[in-house]
């Protein structure tokens, strides 16, 4: 299996150091890959950004794995299912159109609850990291992981 990635903030050579093939645009990714894993944070730019136009570019046998909240355009997702009998979608975020998508039973699956970080290890890691970050903040003024700069 060949693995590709695109990130506007990570140079292609850095991505390729990890044995992953870099591409130059989002459009190139979609037209190249059979499987796409969405791991994007929800921001003003990314919300509803995975749409009919992008998903229509994927090669035959397209499968989208979505573990990111709010980035898929759910209205257009349903349109993709109708337009492409080869399209498959699996997610741990139940879309508002879940009931409508159940008709595509072998091409659609959604976990009953958000599942991505639900491991004992992730739970412990995140909790301890939060506590350590608080101590570093109050002791040293460390704001390394600040998200509202």
């Amino acid at each position, binding site marked *: *299996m*060949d*693995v*590709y*990635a*695109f*990130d506007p903030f*990570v140079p292609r050579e850095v*991505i390729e150091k*990890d*044995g*992953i093939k870099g*591409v130059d645009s*989002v459009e190139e990714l979609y037209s190249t*890959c*059979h*499987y*796409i*894993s969405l*791991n*994007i*944070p*929800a*921001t003003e730019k*990314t919300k509803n950004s995975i749409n009919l136009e992008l998903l229509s570019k994927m*090669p035959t*046998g397209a*499968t989208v*794995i979505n*573990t*990111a909240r709010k980035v898929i355009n759910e209205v257009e997702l349903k349109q993709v299912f109708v337009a492409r009998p080869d399209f*498959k979608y699996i997610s*741990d975020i139940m879309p508002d159109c879940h009931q409508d998508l159940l008709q595509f*039973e*072998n091409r659609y*699956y959604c976990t009953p609850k958000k*599942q*991505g*970080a*639900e*491991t004992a*290890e*992730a*739970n*412990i*890691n*995140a*909790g*301890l*990291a*939060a*506590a*350590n*970050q*608080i101590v570093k*903040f109050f002791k040293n003024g460390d704001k390394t*992981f*600040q*998200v*509202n700069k």
Partner: protein
Amino acid sequence: MTKILVATEKPFAKVAIEGIKKIITEAGYEIALLENYTDPKELLQSVVDVDALIIRSDKATKEVIEAGKNLKLIVRAGAGYDNIDLAAATAKGIVAMNTPGQNSNAVAELTFGMLVFMARGNFKGGSGTELKGKRLVFMPMEMWVRTLLVLLRASTWMCMHSIHLYRVK
């Protein structure tokens, strides 16, 4: 004394709470727990006198942020932080953080499982397709670089070595 509130509608694992308590108390701070709460008003009441707040998927709304008179820091234990009203936090000079990278391996492993599940026709017994020769992409875009690389390494290794899963430690 600096006071830290851990507010979780869905609590941390017991071992995580013990670890959090140890880190906070050894630093000389006080810790308060609000677990399994069902009414957001409980969070409004509990946040009044704390200096920092740890949450999971709990909502740090504008009301919560304004109720925290001493609040200086909110940490979302996890990657996504759309449950924090960042504008309200910024307006009050409160720092908001997430804990990037801590759940990347969990997500990477789930992604791999989902990949196989769909390729094999939802495990319903029909003829599926193999992953060999297919092209997979991760689409992180603005994701934290560290999280991206952890995720890529974990999932890529598993995908590349999918016939040798016994080697996964």
